[in-house]
């Protein structure tokens, strides 16, 4: 089972849309996929009409319980794609992880218990760098980072790289791409050129800003499930293909 995480220090950059659509695209490619909603806001599960988890996967003793986690898995309306919905108690996640032994590898251990069931796990992670994010970084084969082509976004991306360096995490796990790109925005175009020069690891695929993607909340479906075949929102499909090709290298 490969683990892909949608991650950003900064909020509002199209992270959840990324997780939801990547999971959908993987399923379309015949991969058994689990979407794990780690964001306490529960937006990823919302898009699949899956209610928040009833059982807290974190017991009072602070032990992550694989069985309880499994009991919370819900099959989406798209066979082959399951959702592990978020629970508000994840807010206390960090606190609990902090109290545990090997606190940075708990998530990895937990996901390991699901590896027979799925080809891919896609994680929608809460923003900020916390102990949970560190768990995510250690559990992931890919940390996929949406970057809006602005100076501020660049700074947060570089913060993430610094963190990886400091913690001696493999930087090649990070897969950044440009998100919410406005094609007629001059600044976006210039920033992208500049950034690509500085960071050749940026994915070639660009996710455009699109009203269609914004409407996901209305449809309560991944945009790939309702967008027209020629829609620009299909870029998620291309992004998924590019990431898989990079995995195969």
């Amino acid at each position, binding site marked *: 089972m490969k683990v892909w995480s949608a991650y950003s220090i900064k909020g509002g950059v199209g992270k959840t849309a990324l997780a939801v659509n990547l999971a959908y695209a993987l399923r379309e490619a015949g991969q058994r996929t689990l979407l794990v909603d780690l964001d306490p806001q529960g937006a990823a599960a919302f898009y699949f009409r899956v209610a928040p988890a009833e059982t807290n996967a974190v017991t009072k003793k602070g032990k992550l319980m694989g069985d309880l986690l499994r*009991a919370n*898995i819900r099959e989406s309306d798209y066979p082959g794609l399951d959702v592990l919905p978020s629970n508000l108690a994840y807010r206390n996640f960090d606190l609990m992880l902090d109290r545990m032994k090997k606190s940075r590898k708990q998530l990895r251990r937990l996901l390991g218990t699901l590896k027979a069931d799925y080809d891919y796990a896609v994680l929608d992670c809460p923003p900020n760098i916390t102990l949970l994010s560190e768990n995510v970084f250690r559990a992931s084969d890919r940390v996929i980072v949406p970057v809006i082509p602005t100076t501020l976004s660049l700074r947060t991306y570089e913060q993430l790289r610094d963190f990886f360096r400091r913690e001696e995490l493999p930087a090649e796990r990070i897969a950044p791409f440009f998100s919410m790109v406005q094609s007629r925005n001059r600044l976006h175009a210039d920033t992208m050129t500049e950034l690509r020069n500085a960071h050749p690891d940026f994915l070639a695929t660009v996710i455009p800003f699109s009203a269609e993607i914004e409407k996901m909340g209305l449809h309560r479906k991944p945009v790939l499930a309702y967008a027209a075949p020629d829609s620009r929102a299909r870029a998620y499909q291309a992004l998924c293909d590019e990431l898989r090709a990079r995995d195969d290298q």
Partner: protein
Amino acid sequence: MDDPDSPSASAGFPAAFRLRLRFAETAANDVRKALAAEFGLREAGTATGPLVFLDTFEWSLWFAGLVLWEQGGCLRLGAREDDWIGAELATMPIAGATPRFAEDLSNSPLGGIVRPLIGLRALLPVARVEVHHTLIELLDANRKTVLRLDLQEVGGRSERVLVVHGRPLRGYEPEALRAAEVLARFAAEESAEGPLIRAFRRLGREPRAYTLRPNFELSADLPAREAVRHIVSRMLAITRENERGIIEDVDTEFLHDARICIRKIRAVLSLLKDVYPPEETKRLKATFSRLGRETNRLRDLDVELLARADFAARLPSALRDGLNEMFADFAEARAEEQQRIAARLASADHRREMEALARFFGETDGLAPSAASDVPVGPLAAAQIYRRYRKIRKLGRKLGPNTPDAEIHAVRVQGKKLRYLLEFFSELFDAGELKPLEKQLRRLQNRLGRFNDLAVQQRALWAYWETRRATQEAPVELALSLGGLVSLLHRDQQEEREGVHAALEEFASAPVAARFEAMFDPPSVAEEISGEMAP
């Protein structure tokens, strides 16, 4: 991915469930209404299509508790449940024509289950059932799908049955259970007669056990002629049952079985001597001998063609193509011979002859009594069985490493006679005591059969080579392949010889002999028949 039984619906989660519902004109609507009281309902599509069910002449799959059907370009195998499709076990896409023989089933899991069950038998359409599917999704308050239902209206208008397949979604088991409870209110009582049996009936078929070892309803004191009559008329009926399959060339087993029946008839007529006046016995033996002989060539060609895969497996790949031409010749000869036999079996002459024989063995024959016609069959059979056994023992003692093949073949012929006797008259003896003896004999016969097959194959290959050389150009590739093959077969035959010796030794051993004697030659029986059965 959309397969309801895919591994993602993995262990620990409830599998798909199936219910057969009581039929009423409005059943489908009633079911919908009841569900709508508890769930949101969304119709996700409808489909109508025929299911074509396949099985062999012997109903091999049916009696194994399975159903195999073709649907939308796929072959599907399911458990048979309440006379309909139960859990689906395997699926195989169909590339071209509907698979007919074991070899047409790929190395798929479906093939793995079906192949050993059907053997050399052909798969035939046994029923065609129209199914109207309505796919319904049950939704929760978020309009999230919690259960998928496939409502299947099965069969014709007047005899429609409603089958519901439910596929729970992972994590929504409580909802699935609730829906199942609603559906259960409509569940039909289990009955022997469901949609499949009715569909078979429409095509004039019905699953029935097929066997070459029927019960002849014999008793030990039945007069010998009566017993022979019972046996022959039954075997004749089975022969005739197989004729259609031979004429239509469905598979090779029809001819094979028909020939076994004829051989058994010949055996019973020659083993139970004097149950008919001598000239009558002579006439019957000649008739059945001719009936058997007639199809010798076709059976030989069948056997040669069936050996193709085995031959190919024995030879290194470089030598395989050399045989292509030979098999093409065999196939051509077989097609010709098959037509000849089909025409013969379909002819009025043949039909009249078979009907006359059936009449002769059907009721009383009106012939005068003969030397053994009224002897009770029990002791007569026992004496014959014991004689055959002693004969095999005697022949076996003479065998050595240099015994010609023909003499080993003679043992096999005797073994066959003994086997037929045991089969005919098994009803008269204690099954528990008989079984180990039959098993012992089967072991010997299997050895002898393999030995003989290897000898026959070598002869057939030589014969082909001789004709090729005499009549047309014989390519060197053919010579190489045949040479290689004959050598391999010869080596295997020599190895088999040791097995034959060992099996014979065991069969002739004192414990086995003692058991045969105790069962078939108790002192009282010996006295009773000593006068009649003197050689």
